[in-house]
């Protein structure tokens, strides 16, 4: 459904590189998650695929339509939810939905089945102005508006940023149901727990895709041993570990430190290394999370050379 081939985009006459020739494809009914820090190029990619931005070079097709030449066809068959809430704040929930249905030449009734689950939650507030909705409700309304014309592909740019945990969970349940109905979804998120719910994940960094794979395989591709260290002196220990020649990577992760040593040795030997630095610290071998994998990818030589 989405074919991206060597897309390049630069800003400021080539000075700022947003996308360095990325390629990937998304199949029908697939949910692809885009993950990467700010400035990785996620939003530029979204804007190119939704025909808002022209790429410098490369080709991309959405639903078999070319993004540069057949942009009018694409605009009828994609739904886009920008990162920033961008519906009319002074129109009510119902009026916003009505407006976006009509500009796509359809009616709310015609495609009500698509948004029924979501809209039922908004029903009590349908007379309320969009500007007065809570964050989670706003996102639900935006999703409804992006869905009302029955798009084949859905582009969601950080749809759950700034939304509470419960609403985030509900939101992803909805995405799951939409996927079952055959919708192709490209979604970016800063939350790793959400990324795990995608069919495949693309790690983006400085305009490149470092890796694109299923969550399972990404986790399996982490070949080193990973340890979580619990300590009260996080900052001092972090600095001490980083200066250690045996350390491969080491970073703070919530309340603990995730440490990847270069050497393969017995746990007790490692324990003694740590306790030499901080006698109260405890060491535990853990399974990697997506974030560990992401940091591991960033440290690979071919990634940093770009």
């Amino acid at each position, binding site marked *: 459904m989405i074919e991206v081939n060597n897309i390049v985009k630069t800003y400021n006459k080539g000075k700022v590189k947003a996308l360095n020739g990325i390629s990937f494809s998304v199949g029908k009914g697939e949910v692809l998650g885009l993950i990467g820090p700010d400035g990785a190029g996620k939003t530029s990619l979204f804007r190119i695929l939704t025909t*808002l931005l*022209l790429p410098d070079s490369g080709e991309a097709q959405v639903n078999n339509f070319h993004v540069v030449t057949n942009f009018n066809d694409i605009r009828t068959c994609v739904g*886009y939810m*920008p990162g920033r809430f*961008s519906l*009319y*704040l*002074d129109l009510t929930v119902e009026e916003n939905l009505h*407006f976006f249905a009509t*500009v796509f030449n359809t009616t709310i009734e015609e495609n009500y089945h698509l948004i029924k689950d979501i809209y039922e939650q908004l029903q009590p507030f349908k007379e309320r102005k969009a500007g007065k909705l809570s964050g989670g409700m706003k996102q639900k309304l935006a999703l409804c508006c992006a869905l009302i014309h029955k798009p084949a592909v859905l582009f969601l740019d950080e749809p759950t940023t700034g939304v509470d945990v419960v609403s985030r969970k509900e939101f992803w349940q909805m995405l799951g149901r939409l996927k079952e109905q055959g919708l192709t979804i490209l979604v970016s998120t800063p939350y790793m727990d959400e990324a795990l719910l995608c069919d495949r994940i693309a790690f983006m960094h400085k305009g490149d895709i470092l890796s694109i794979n299923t969550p399972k395989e990404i986790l399996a591709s982490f070949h080193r041993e990973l340890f979580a260290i619990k300590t009260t002196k996080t900052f001092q220990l972090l600095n001490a570990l980083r200066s250690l020649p045996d350390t491969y990577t080491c970073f703070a992760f919530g309340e603990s430190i995730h440490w990847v040593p270069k050497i393969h040795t017995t746990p007790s030997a490692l324990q003694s290394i740590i306790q030499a630095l901080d006698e109260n610290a405890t060491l535990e071998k853990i399974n990697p999370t997506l974030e560990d994998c992401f940091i591991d990818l960033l440290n690979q030589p071919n990634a940093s050379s770009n």
Partner: protein
Amino acid sequence: MRSLFFILEKEFRQMRRRKGLIRTLFIAPIIQLILMPLAANYSVKNISLVVVDHDHSSTSREMVAKITSSGHFNLYATSESNKEALSYVEHDKADLVLEIPPHFERNLVRENSEKLSVEINAIEGVKAGLAGAYLSQILLDYNADIRERFLPPTHQAFVFRIIPIHWYNVFLNYYLYIIPGILVNLVTGIGLMQTAFNLVNEKEIGTIEQINVTPVKKFWFILGKLLPFYILSAIIFSVGLLVGFVFYGMVPVGSIATMYIALLDFLFALVGFGLLLSTYAESQQQVMSLAFFFMNILNMMSGLFTNLDSMPAWAQFITNCFPLSHFIKAMRMICLKGSGLADITPHLLYMFAIGLVFNTWAVLNYKKRS
């Protein structure tokens, strides 16, 4: 085409929600049209006059009476010395000093001529110029009067008397002249600012992104955004005309239909200009500074406050490139002179050409994608 209807539906819905907008749009023009013509008045009245009469003759007294009865001058004080009289001017109590020399009447009769001294406070240029002109007009009149009186009929020389007849505005009624101008000024302010704000607002809150990914053609979208402001501006114009009628008894001599044709033509250019500004601005603050800058130039060079024909050639060329001066001229022609469509055709064509340039430029500059 269908999408135009839905965009209009949305626009009017939003407009109705903005209670502040409706209030400013209607109340402000009404108040301005009631107050401004009274305040912004060119006919100078209440010029304070100080008379230094060294003659104390019946002629000098009669002359002063003639001056003060004209309605333009108030006799602030009489004084015995020029020095004292000038101190009134210095303290901003008097605008004009008239000094009548000793033996004024005698010399006038004996020698057939005498000089008067007039000193005018020229801090306010317009007022000084007009005061001087009024005074010399009155004195000339009086001069002719006393010639007839003192000289025997056989000795009377030929005297010119100029009696101006002010065509189209017989009593030089200032309101008739200024109200069409103020009305145009109001429509300009609201039409330009609101159009420019409206589109930039969509940019600022991000809704333009959503619109841009819809299949709506940009022509219909822009038209849908502009039409409400045509209607709004036309309503304000009508309210203004009504205020002019109710408060100042202004009844246009020409046809109302011609006036509205000129209005629509003008709005085409004006709203196009607002649209053009909004395609260049990214935020309301930016568009506000831009619009403010152009509003000032438009107002100063529109012929509302100053006379166009006395401007240097380059300035006249610039004013011709703005729609405002054409509309003000057309409005005055219709209101005062009763000009018909044929008479204002040059102005209509100018405005249409200007509008065409602005609108085309704006539509080309507005891109649904970057």
